[in-house]
């Protein structure tokens, strides 16, 4: 008898409403390293997985926004703590997926974790920086309050498997939105790992949902879904983005497309915010 241990192979599953299901469709697909070696079998999400994810995101959005900004910051910071303790695993996957050397991969993970903390810090500053007390000619206060758009669909960057994903999903979440994300089609595993970490970070179920699969198959469903309030088109090319924007206009979604060489990291934070204006009498 051999004393060689059997491999414990990992199944990379979706994250929907705090649970890790396989795709409703039963499909999966192979993901390779940059150099073409087998990396993992990943669930191939479907239209109905997205439907379930949007339902979950919609259900929890009011609760997420109603929790204090301070509390939301703590939850996101906790994600950074979890990521820090699994940074080697993240680095291995980022390195394999993006074809980076060990050191480069570790730097990428460090940047990603630092960005998580950066977004954690923003939760209670968005209202200070982007809100305001407006001068009016009368005995009233007039406030502009940034409020979340609601449910945001994210087609995450195809190239940047972790950093790009962190930026795309945490910016709307920090602002009080809930997110249904489609991870990078060919490099999904770092995003799946990050999703697993939200399970130990006090993220309410449904705040971040991750569906892996074929972006071009999944994107139209999200763009046309009337219960989605905004869409981030980072992960599609210009032609696809134009087509999806037209579809998104059908339900008046906010559409975000990253600019090339953008130096303003707050653009994403501001992308899915609505400003509500409140009047209040002075002295009451």
């Amino acid at each position, binding site marked *: 008898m051999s004393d060689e241990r059997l491999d414990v192979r990992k199944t990379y599953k979706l994250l929907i409403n705090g649970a890790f299901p396989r795709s409703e469709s039963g499909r999966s697909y192979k993901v390779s390293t940059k150099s073409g070696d087998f990396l993992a079998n990943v669930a191939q999400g479907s239209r109905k997985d997205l*439907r379930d994810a949007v339902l979950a995101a919609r259900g929890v959005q009011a609760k997420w926004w109603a929790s204090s900004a301070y509390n939301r910051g703590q939850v996101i910071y906790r994600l950074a703590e979890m990521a820090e303790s699994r940074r080697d695993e993240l680095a291995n996957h980022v390195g394999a997926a993006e074809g980076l050397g060990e050191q480069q991969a570790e730097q990428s993970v460090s940047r990603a974790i630092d960005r998580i903390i950066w977004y954690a810090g923003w939760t209670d500053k968005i209202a200070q920086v982007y809100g305001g007390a407006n001068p009016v000619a009368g005995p009233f206060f007039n406030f502009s309050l940034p409020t979340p758009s609601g449910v945001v669909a994210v087609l995450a960057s195809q190239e940047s498997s972790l950093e790009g994903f962190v930026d795309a999903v945490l910016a709307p979440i920090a602002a009080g939105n809930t997110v249904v994300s489609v991870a990078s089609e060919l490099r999904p595993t770092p995003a799946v790992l990050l999703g697993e970490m939200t399970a130990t970070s006090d993220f309410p179920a449904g705040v971040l949902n991750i569906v892996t699969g074929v972006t071009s198959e999944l994107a139209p*469903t999200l763009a046309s*879904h*009337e*219960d989605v309030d905004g869409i981030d088109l980072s992960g599609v090319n210009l032609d696809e983005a134009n087509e999806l924007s037209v579809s998104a206009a059908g339900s008046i979604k906010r559409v975000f497309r990253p600019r090339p060489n953008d130096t303003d990291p707050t653009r994403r934070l501001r992308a899915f915010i609505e400003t509500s204006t409140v009047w209040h009498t002075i002295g009451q």
Partner: protein
Amino acid sequence: MSTAPLRLVTRDDYGVKFASASVVPAIGSETQLKSVLGALAGVDAVGLEARCAKLATRSIKKSTKLEAIDLAISMVDLTTLEGADTPARVSSLCAKAMRPDPRDLTVPSVAAVCVYPDLVARARSALANSSVAVASVATAFPSGRASMRVKLLDVNDAVEAGAHEVDMVIDRGAFLSGRVGEVFEEIVAVKEACGEAHLKVILETGELVTYDNVRRASWLAMLAGADFVKTSTGKVSVNATPPAALVMLEAVRDFAESTGKLVGVKVAGGIRTTKDALRYLVLVNETAGSTWLSPDRFRFGASSLLNDLLMQRLKQHRGAYVRSDDFSGD
């Protein structure tokens, strides 16, 4: 007292042949009733649940789904049975019942609005000139714990206010302790008090413990003159379940076969999604047959179900998922 023999049917096929004339046997004594109910075959609980699970896997798509959704909408008893009900709330519910989706006139209106007796008059005036009926719960709904005198007054109230349909609850305590004659007489008395109004008898299957009891209670209610048998009040922890509904559908089918009288079935409580509703329609079709696929023979007691049906209907037409906020709450 009629002497027409009751032929008890245990066959589980689809070919229902109804007796040509309506010959519901009169029950003269509790002993006779007990012997009739005692002769009913027991229910194979494991087989029943397996059959329900099997039928729940039927896939209904495209144009069939659209037709089924419209049929389900037309079978809804749009219900509000809350202590906080107000006349205004009933009025808005009635508006929704007549025109479930104001943007789309092809959506059928629902079958009925179901309210407490004191709100029947309001519902009647709000629904005047429409095809939507007014149903009222009565007989000390939902517990049924009141004297016979009070229960009949409750029914009279509802009928005088203009209810087309009365949903009564049976005395589960009496049924479970074997006093079936008492339950029978109560239903007969309520049926008489209903006059022209249709009588739905709520068995509260969640409190009847066994499927055998569900079958016996269904026969009891039908022999006593029920026009509908209804699963639940929606006020206890176990509401309508597909197996209980299947037992009741078998009962109405067998009753029709041996007596010629067609009794309807109403499932109520906890049915919130289109998927659930379509599964019930499959049960109806596969058990009682297509004769029961009509609002006259099958109803859903529900409130939030209607919005889900409307959302799925719109989704089928538009090809995109729709927004729940676009439909009025109840």
